[in-house]
């Protein structure tokens, strides 16, 4: 049995090598089919990682809520305590300052910078890719000067990050501790995060001289905004995070907001929402890829059947030389498997090259968040080569069965 198996495999390899034209012909359909399959897995993997990264940068890690409270807060400490009591595991201020803040370095001023007042905890809630320096630490809250993290676009226009001033009516010295990687998913082209601390309290919570900018869009984040990360299973995540606002509103009297309508909360992360359409899209594309692969299978099967008919004399010669039926069965099936796996490897190499090229393009054009590249995932490799072997096996069995049925004597007469 083992000898027959080994002999069958040796003959299969020799047959594939000897009949290059047949091998290439059989390969073509499978290369396209397996290539399509791997591209779908690649695309799906890229889409998922892109969606997760986008969501984590833009909104936060899974189960992040944005909570806004309109109106004057009588006790901010009580509100923040209640944000934890309502289910928050990490809480950060996410405050648009009441008035326009400007930033300059020496004589160079950046006029259109969007500021957000945040806590150091935001670094645990959102994905922040640092290009230089670091994110805020708790020690920074003791700084006598306001502490900033700015994005790369802003850093590029400021000539000296060690000499930075911010201000509304008057300029104050500020300290830049880090620069986050530029991405087009920030809330503005030029962005600055200002750490909430005694040094920045006045700037962040001063009464606006004009209407808050966010109100212009009717967006309820202008006054008192927080980002809150809860357990994904927490009931507060129900109704896209709306349930959290209802829970919080029940204690509103403690911090001077009694109107439940003045409290909003919603899911800031979008990974969950993107997951379902992505899944349907992946299934749809996988279906198309499998149909393509099925066509490739029929191609290999067809070539296999034709060649078995053409090779009756060769197969009969093998039988005359002592090949058992099992050996011939293995040889014919293995030929199809070898051809398909080679085709799968070619498709894999093609997809890898395509992925590398696409990765360079999207990275160079800054189309994707940092760290999200286009690549062939491990399950794509397994699925591609596994499907190739499966196709070969399926496409080889029928011709092999025919090869076994053929009469040796008739084959030798041809």
């Amino acid at each position, binding site marked *: 049995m083992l000898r027959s198996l080994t002999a069958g495999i040796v*003959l299969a390899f020799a047959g594939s090598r000897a009949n290059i034209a047949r091998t290439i012909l059989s390969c073509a359909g499978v290369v396209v089919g397996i290539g399509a399959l791997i591209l779908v897995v690649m695309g799906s993997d890229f889409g998922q990682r892109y969606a997760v990264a986008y969501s984590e940068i833009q909104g936060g890690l899974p189960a992040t809520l944005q909570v806004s409270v309109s109106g004057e807060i009588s006790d901010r400490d009580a509100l923040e305590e209640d944000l934890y009591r309502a289910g928050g595991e990490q809480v950060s201020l996410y405050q648009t300052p009441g008035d326009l803040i400007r930033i300059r370095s020496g004589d160079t001023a950046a006029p259109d910078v969007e500021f957000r007042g945040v806590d150091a905890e935001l670094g645990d809630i959102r994905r922040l890719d640092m290009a230089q320096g670091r994110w805020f630490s708790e020690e920074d809250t003791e700084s006598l000067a306001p502490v900033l993290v700015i994005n790369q676009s802003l850093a590029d226009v400021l000539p000296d990050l060690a000499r930075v001033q911010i201000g509304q009516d008057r300029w104050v010295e500020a300290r830049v501790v880090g620069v986050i990687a530029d991405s087009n998913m920030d809330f503005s082209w030029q962005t600055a995060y200002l750490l909430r601390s005694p040094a920045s309290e006045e700037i962040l919570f001063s009464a606006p001289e004009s209407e808050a900018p966010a109100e212009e869009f009717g967006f309820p984040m202008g006054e008192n905004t927080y980002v809150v990360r809860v357990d994904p299973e927490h009931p507060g995540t129900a109704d896209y995070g709306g349930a959290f606002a209802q829970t919080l509103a029940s204690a509103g009297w403690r911090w001077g907001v009694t109107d439940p309508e003045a409290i909003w909360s919603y899911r800031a992360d979008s990974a969950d929402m993107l997951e379902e359409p992505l899944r349907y899209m992946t299934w749809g594309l996988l279906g198309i890829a499998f149909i393509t692969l099925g066509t490739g299978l029929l191609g290999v099967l067809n070539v296999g059947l034709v060649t078995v008919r053409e090779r009756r004399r060769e197969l009969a010669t093998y039988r005359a*030389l002592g090949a058992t039926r099992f*050996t011939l069965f293995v040889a014919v099936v293995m030929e199809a498997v070898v051809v398909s796996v080679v085709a799968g490897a070619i498709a894999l190499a093609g997809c890898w090259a395509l992925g590398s090229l696409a990765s360079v393009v999207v990275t160079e054009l800054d189309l994707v968040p940092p760290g999200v590249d286009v690549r062939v995932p491990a399950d794509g490799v397994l699925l591609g080569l596994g499907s190739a072997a499966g196709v070969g096996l399926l496409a080889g069995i029928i011709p092999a069965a025919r090869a076994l049925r053929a009469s040796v004597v008739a084959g030798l007469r041809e």
Partner: protein
Amino acid sequence: MAVGTPLPGAARSPDDTSPLLRVEGMTRHFMVSGTRIDVLHDCTFQVARGEVVAIVGQSGSGKSTLLNLLGLLDRPSGGTYVFDDVDTTRLGEGRRSRLRGEGIGFVFQQFHLLERRSALANVGVPMVLGGVPVLRRRTRARELLESVGLGHRLSSQPHQLSGGEQQRVALARALSREPALILADEPTGALDAASSRMIMDQLLAQAELRGAAVVVVTHDPKVAERAGRVVELVEGRTR
């Protein structure tokens, strides 16, 4: 093959006089469109180890059918065929294939070499089927091709060889597993007179060297007269 079981035809004691093959009352008929056609009737003969036997007869007398039966490529409709002390009529398909590979070498009229494979690879095929390790296989194939005068054509493919050279490759292939029996079906049928003579010389010399019996089916009286014994088939019956 179990340890201790001798290869067919190998290492026999010189005083072993049992016949290599024994055919008794063998018949073969075919059904064609519901009509029974009897090709062989009650064939009985035997071949000793190392003996050279020619089977002659007119076209349609059943020579090739008999050769296929002796080569275990076909099953008789009746009678007994004992090869190397094994009653082949009771063997399963797998065992028949192994016995054929180990004990019988074929030389066909049309050579039946595998296209797009070198002479060396062609000679190696029976050894692949016999599980001979690759290095030993190559060495032996080279030696066999050198012994039939083709040491300079090892990597030539069949279409690059003359008819006589192709038949010599086929002869080397038939000898590759040291068979006890060589079956040759019109081995010179596709060759000119000079090549025919050379092939017969080499076939008989190599068989004698290895102690193999030869059964050759032929129309050619010159080939038949070189056999030690002639079995004539007339209308499917041996004489």
